[in-house]
């Protein structure tokens, strides 16, 4: 290759000229733990530092907020990752608080509104209170749930050991089913001396309804309208899975809205911290189950950063090919499902699924599975694409898909009904989109040209020629157009990747079940079809990650849902939600 090898994205905040410690003497110090980077901020100065980073230095996009429980040190940590929408590496900063209840940290929700759900998640899972958060309720579990499950000293009912492989399974292998071993013969745990007959149920919904805005209005004639609360979901044909929204209506107009989630909270992070590093790979498949190939990449990127290994050259190309195919099939399905939400029930989706099957054939040939590909390994991919499948791929990329995207456009783009339903609906300004931490096509449809493949290239994306698609309108129609054009750009990348792919091994080093990961932290983020998918991994040098956090685009992109829906009609709410492109496995994790 003529271009220089770059297998690792630049590490954020390391060797950066930014010196927060000099700017805030006594309040900020560099994080000097081995393998860590960024800054440790005193709790009382968090808001001042955050405001400085946003207003003076331009770190306007809060990518991720997450908690870490350092049980042996008796500390809890909240980690913030901020980036500039103009591109470049980000800044990590952390707040450390003693691990004694009540644990309190100031909220940054008014500096970056995108922190809303993430702070609620940390409260729910770690029990860290965010002072100043207006609506700090549990988000993934339910109100009334006992304990904060991500704490290191909280054990689930089926608890066996701190870390896998469990002795019962390996090497002896005398496995008894978890029900047999657990106290209640089921996956449940109750407080001491719990008596379900005397226990008085607290309504878990009460806080939710209280959080909805009180609303009454009077028009000129003195007629008063009352609010109607409509519960949509968790079983609803339009919610793309088990998502629920509580909507307050004035007539047909949405005046307030609260998303309720956690109906598919499968404890990825808790299980992920028990798993070994490689065991987590198939779990990432099941996050955004449409796009297992790109999920794999985000995770392997983070672990490869920690391990400091190179990715085999051919594997880099295969990763790009698979990720871009994934993007195309995701956007195709999005168009199909979007039209479902608009009322053209299932016919457009049939067209989308036809193409998706062809793409899945290639995934199956390469990885052995249609959906849950589990294709990446640290340092490459698990196996090469068979030659026949590669020929098929060429046929798809050069002939079939361009024609099909053309066909979709011919049917839809200027379709009068589609335009009428989409244009001007669900508006989100560029400022709001950034403030609410929107990423992916949602952000680009609001006119912000932010694509991680360009802003902070990972893998070999710096070698490809493609456009970052944006539209200035910020409405639903723009979101549709961005996605259609992104499929074309993906095809462009695919053409270049197929042309340039070298021969060679697909894995650097030997395949291994157990990898040695040096202590430290890493944040791997990729431009997944739905937005920025980030994995925050902390290793302590043991076979299992100490912390495994997923920054899910579906989850964080929903923060702006209320903003987009208020003032629109209830029928449009369904479409606006669809346009965000959520998938519940990733949303609830």
């Amino acid at each position, binding site marked *: 290759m003529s271009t220089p090898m770059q297998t690792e994205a630049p590490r954020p905040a390391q060797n950066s000229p930014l010196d927060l410690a000099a700017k805030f003497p006594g309040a900020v110090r560099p994080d000097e733990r081995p393998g860590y980077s960024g800054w440790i901020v005193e709790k009382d100065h968090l808001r001042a530092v955050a405001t400085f980073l946003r207003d003076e230095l331009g770190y306007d996009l809060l990518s991720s907020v997450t908690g870490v429980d350092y049980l042996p040190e008796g500390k809890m940590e909240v980690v913030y990752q901020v980036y500039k929408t103009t591109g470049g590496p980000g800044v990590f900063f952390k707040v450390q608080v003693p691990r004694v209840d009540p644990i309190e940290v100031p909220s940054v929700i008014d500096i970056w509104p995108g922190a809303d759900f993430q702070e609620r998640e940390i409260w729910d899972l770690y029990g860290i209170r965010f002072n100043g958060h207006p609506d700090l309720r549990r988000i993934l579990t339910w109100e009334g749930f006992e304990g904060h499950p991500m704490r290191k000293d909280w054990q689930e009912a089926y608890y066996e050991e701190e870390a896998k492989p469990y002795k019962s399974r390996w090497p002896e292998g005398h496995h008894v089913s978890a029900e047999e071993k657990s106290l209640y013969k089921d996956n449940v745990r109750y407080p001491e001396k719990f*008596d*379900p007959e005397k226990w008085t149920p607290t309504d878990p919904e009460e806080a939710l309804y209280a959080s909805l805005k009180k609303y009454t209005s009077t028009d000129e004639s003195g007629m008063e309208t009352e609010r109607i609360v409509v519960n949509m979901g968790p079983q609803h044909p339009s919610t793309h899975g088990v998502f629920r929204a509580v909507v307050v209506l004035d007539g047909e107009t949405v005046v307030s809205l609260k998303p309720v989630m*956690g109906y598919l909270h499968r404890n990825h992070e808790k299980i992920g911290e028990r798993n070994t590093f490689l065991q987590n790979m198939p779990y990432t498949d099941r996050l955004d189950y449409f796009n297992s190939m790109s999920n794999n990449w985000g995770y392997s990127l983070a672990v490869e950063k920690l391990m400091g290994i190179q990715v085999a050259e051919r594997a880099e190309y295969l990763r790009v090919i698979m990720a871009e195919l994934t993007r195309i099939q995701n956007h195709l399905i999005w168009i199909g499902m979007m039209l479902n939400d608009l009322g053209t029930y299932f016919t457009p989706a049939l067209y989308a699924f036809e193409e998706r099957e062809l793409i899945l054939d290639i995934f199956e040939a390469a990885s052995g599975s249609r959906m849950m590909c589990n294709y990446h390994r640290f340092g490459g991919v698990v196996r090469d694409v068979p030659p026949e499948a590669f020929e098929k791929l060429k046929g798809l990329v050069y002939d079939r898909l361009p024609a099909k995207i053309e066909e979709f456009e011919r049917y839809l783009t200027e379709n009068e009904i589609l335009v009428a339903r989409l244009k001007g609906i669900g508006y989100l300004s560029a400022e709001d989109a950034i403030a609410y931490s929107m990423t992916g096509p949602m952000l680009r449809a609001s006119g912000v040209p932010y694509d991680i493949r360009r802003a902070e290239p990972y893998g070999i994306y710096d070698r490809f020629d493609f456009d970052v698609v944006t539209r200035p309108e910020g409405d639903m129609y723009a979101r549709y157009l961005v996605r259609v054009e992104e499929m074309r750009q993906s095809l462009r990348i695919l053409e270049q990747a197929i042309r340039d792919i070298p021969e060679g091994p697909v894995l650097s080093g030997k395949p291994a079940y157990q990898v040695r990961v040096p202590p430290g932290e890493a944040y791997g983020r990729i431009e997944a079809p739905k937005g920025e998918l980030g994995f925050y991994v902390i290793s302590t040098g043991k076979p299992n990650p100490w912390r495994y956090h997923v920054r899910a685009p579906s989850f964080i992109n929903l923060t702006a849902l209320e903003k987009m829906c208020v003032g629109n009609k209830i029928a449009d709410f369904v479409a606006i939600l669809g346009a965000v492109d959520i998938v519940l496995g990733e949303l609830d994790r």
Partner: protein
Amino acid sequence: MDDHELNSPGYDIPEDMKNVVAITTLDRIYNWGRRSSVWPMMFGLACCAIEMIAAQAARYDMARFGMEVMRPTPRQSDLMLVSGTVTKKMVPAIVRLYNQMPEPKYVVAMGACASGGGPFKEGYNVVSGIDKFLPVDVYIPGCPPTPQALIAGLIKLQEKIDKQSIRQVRWYRKGPDSVEIPVPVLGPDLIDLRRKAEIKQIAAQVPSKEA
């Protein structure tokens, strides 16, 4: 169903009446109607739901088995395809949906999670299989099962329907036609109301941590 299959043995049809008249049992014709128009509930929980949609789409086309009419309301559906991980937060809604389905109704546990918790079994918010609450007719292994596996499972369900008899099924007998399953409650953890006494007893025996 060809005439050979439809004609039950023991009745001889004159040669000139063949292909005009068929004699069969009520059970058979009734089950034939039911097995060929099983309406699944449009209800997806997780990853498996995507394979369920794929099975409905062009390449696999579940319409061949009369199962393409997905109903979003439980009141009109015959089959609950539990397609994905059942979480504690979701299971009250699932049980309620099941209770709302009219008889005859069937439950298919699609995939490892719905069958027994699957890869997420150890998770604190995961129910170890829908059969902890609902009577399951067919289990389909896989994570997720391919559309072919799903269709194979549904054919198994059809075979099950074939074997049922009007004389024995509970919804044609006296008494309530359907069994209500108590909807579990979300407390400090999920509470299965059928196990109240047992839970109380075990909780009382647990030695206090401080002691």
